[in-house]
């Protein structure tokens, strides 16, 4: 097997280089100083925490975004990619986590759409097209039938079709944006074999993954991004996983609020051995009165899915959920609500709010039963409820009758919280409660969660932001690939340890830590 940078790669210089790229979206500086160099025949890993600027860099390489500053060089010559088509023409192909194929067309047609080989009379030469597709699959070592329709292909196979399409376009740079997140272990192995085949044919591969062991298994170079900057770029050989974790987290540890937490009371929410096949396995956790439990882990580790199953939105295959000793019926959000559970979903625009409805109606939505008299909703009671909670949460709005879409992100999030607090829940599940809201409002939301806990509410919080997790929670459960990987007390957790557990680089054997998951 050829070593790192086999063949001509290094001497010939980078096939693609991004130098000191910056990109801002409105007030948010998504990328401050992004640099990366891709060499032929090399797999290059791009890692960093959520929000470190990886996606922005990928989108710049894909021609989706144009950088505000910095330069992009293809074969050493500066280029401007005005769109995805320009990137494609420059030999850059991007494989997304879940490709979009034409389900009714054959695999070969999916690869060659708009470029089908022709025979006389501009008719499609189906045989030549299938042969070309088969040749590419043979090159990749993947036995995929070019003549079958794409409907029903596994995600792994869909990615292979996309990679095949990239090769048929003579792509020299193949960017894979978290390709392994939705794959099984066997499929990951096959993808690695495909990556190796790509490298051997002189392609440069940019590989994005949260799983550090995959980087060590398949990549020759690694670039670490943090807070929009490149903080490390070097050969993988000689690096330890701990070095990468340190580079990814890097920042000063967040200060911890002193003594905000009381002693937890009786167990409110008890989840026992909850399993949904292929999504999460054997999840057991307890949330006590007055306690904030954080569910940490990487995006895609199954945190949100667990929350949705607890609240009854998604089904589960095994296990039980009890609230104050009473078992919840599976798949029944109504039952969960009646038992005193509130759920603030991750995506407030799609799932938490009805954007065209007024602030007042949105706040009242979860409390309609209480606001009824003789089957009709009393609009005066609705207004009182909304005004009361808007004042308590300091929601900034014009009029209660304004559509909630007119509010800022932070205030929208407060409306979702108000909606559930209006029901006075015993247990509140919040999924990414501060995503996309400004720092000041974020602090207010944190204060609110702490206040709720002091009032005896049990809070289960899902968050990808480690400082937030460390600031507000009493206990931290870390999920990795659908399982609980570790548990930390507020007092003895550090960002490095949580990150290590989430990426599978735990110091001790993971099994030992997992055993602590249920106190």
């Amino acid at each position: 097997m050829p070593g790192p940078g086999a063949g001509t790669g290094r001497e010939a210089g980078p096939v693609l280089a991004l130098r000191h790229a910056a990109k801002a979206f409105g007030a948010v500086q998504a990328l401050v100083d992004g640099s990366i160099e891709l060499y032929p025949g090399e797999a290059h890993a791009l890692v960093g925490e959520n929000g470190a600027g990886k996606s922005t860099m990928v989108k710049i390489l894909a021609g989706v975004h144009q950088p505000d500053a910095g330069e992009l060089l293809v074969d050493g010559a500066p280029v401007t990619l005005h769109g995805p088509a320009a990137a494609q023409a420059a030999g850059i192909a991007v494989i997304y986590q879940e490709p979009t194929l034409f389900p009714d067309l054959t695999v070969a047609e999916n690869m060659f759409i708009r470029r089908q080989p022709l025979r006389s009379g501009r008719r499609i030469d189906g045989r030549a097209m299938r042969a070309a597709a088969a040749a590419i699959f043979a090159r990749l070592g993947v036995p995929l039938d070019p003549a079958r329709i794409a409907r029903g292909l596994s995600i792994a196979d869909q990615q292979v079709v996309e990679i095949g399409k990239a090769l048929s376009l003579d792509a020299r740079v193949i960017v894979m944006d978290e390709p392994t997140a939705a794959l099984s272990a066997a499929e990951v192995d096959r993808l690695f074999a495909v990556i190796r085949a790509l490298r051997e044919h002189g392609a440069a591969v940019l590989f994005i993954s949260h799983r550090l062991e995959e980087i060590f298994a398949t990549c020759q170079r690694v670039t670490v991004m943090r807070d929009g900057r490149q903080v490390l770029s070097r050969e993988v050989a000689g690096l330890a996983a701990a070095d990468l974790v340190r580079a990814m987290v890097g920042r000063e540890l967040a200060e911890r609020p002193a003594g905000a937490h009381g002693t937890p009371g009786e167990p409110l929410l008890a989840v026992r051995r909850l399993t949904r096949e292929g999504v999460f396995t054997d999840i057991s956790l307890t949330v006590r009165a007055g306690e904030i439990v954080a569910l940490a882990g990487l995006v895609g580790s199954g945190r949100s899915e667990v929350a949705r199953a607890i609240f009854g939105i998604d089904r589960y295959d095994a296990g039980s959920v009890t609230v104050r000793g009473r078992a919840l019926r599976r798949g029944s959000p109504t039952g969960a609500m009646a038992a005193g559970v509130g759920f603030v979903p991750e995506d407030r625009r799609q799932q938490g709010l009805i954007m065209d409805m007024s602030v007042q109606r949105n706040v009242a939505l979860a409390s309609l039963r209480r606001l009824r008299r003789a089957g009709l909703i009393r609009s005066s009671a609705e207004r009182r409820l909304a005004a009361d909670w808007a004042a308590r949460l300091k929601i900034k709005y014009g009029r209660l009758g304004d559509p909630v879409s007119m509010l800022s992100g932070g205030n929208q999030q407060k409306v979702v919280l108000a909606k559930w607090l209006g029901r006075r829940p015993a247990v509140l599940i919040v999924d990414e409660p501060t995503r996309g809201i400004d720092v000041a409002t974020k602090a207010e939301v944190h204060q609110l969660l702490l206040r709720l806990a002091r009032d005896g509410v049990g809070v289960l919080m899902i968050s990808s932001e480690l400082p937030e997790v460390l600031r507000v929670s009493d206990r931290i459960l870390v999920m990795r690939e659908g399982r609980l990987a570790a548990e930390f007390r507020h007092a003895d957790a550090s960002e490095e340890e949580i990150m290590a557990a989430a990426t599978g680089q735990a110091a001790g054997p993971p099994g030992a830590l997992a055993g602590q998951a249920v106190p």
Partner: protein
Amino acid sequence: MSATVTPQRERPPAPAGTGARKLTERAFRIRESGIIAVLAVFVAVTAAIQSRFLDITNIQFVLVNTTVFALLALGETLVVISRNYDLSVGSVLGLSAYLSASLFGQHHGIPIPVAFLTGLGIGLACGVANGVMVSAGRVPSLVVTLATLYIIRGIDILIVGGKEVVANSLPAAYTAIPRSTVLGVPDVAIAVAIVVGLGAYCLRSFRSGRELYAIGSNPDAARLAGIPIGRRVFAAFAASGAIAGVAGVLWAAQYGTVDSTAGTGYELQVVSAVVVGGVAIFGGSGSAVGAALGALLLNTISSALYVLGISPFWDQAIWGFLLILAISLDRLISVRLTAALRLRGARHG
């Protein structure tokens, strides 16, 4: 940590012409062979009860009646494959039928091809209007063609008023078209069969045809792939309109008497013929041949009920039942197919 990848176990060489492929081919054939089977059952049962049904004149009658619907079904297939609908075809047919037939009364001695060209032009104009509103105006086609269904019918009524074209004002050569046969097969049936076959071949064998399927199969992916969606959908509507225009001229030759109600309600019959013929209602798959067979089935059922002396009420009820059957079958096949393909994928993986 271990930095090695488990080596890939040796795989057998990729199976050639594998089962999955045969499976898909069979499923597509099933769709058409299903209609043929239903058709055969109807013909057999009806003929067993009333042998008059298989008289050459009756068969010719059914075939000629089918030609208009088969043409409309071809146009509709182009549109439905791209995940759109053309509800204006009945009105286009009516307008074209009246205007082209009334030419003969106004200008004596006009050659028959001129009537066909007139119908084609009228239909094309209507189709272009639909296409512009759907592609450039980005209005859902259901709404656009529902509107043009009424607008074109309204124009028709304004022009026709209480008048009608009667058969004896038409040249004999024109009204003879549907009756002319070769070896007992009506000429028009042969012509339409060729046109439908050609249409199906083009859809299958040209890039633009495959792109229509791609658009219907996954519009987002089509955009990403750089398919000119607007242009393709526009062309489908223009073609559907033009074909409906030609069908109108044929309709007038067949019935002789044309008033402002010609073709009323055809749009739903055509859409349902297309669906029964195995074209997926949300686009992406199906063939023009299947759609034409759907039209043939529709006319065979009407004729069978007539021959058997059953109330025409049953005509619609049976048709509705077949529609539900076709859609259930479609679901069943696609669910089974997906499951079977998954299984195969798993075995490969």
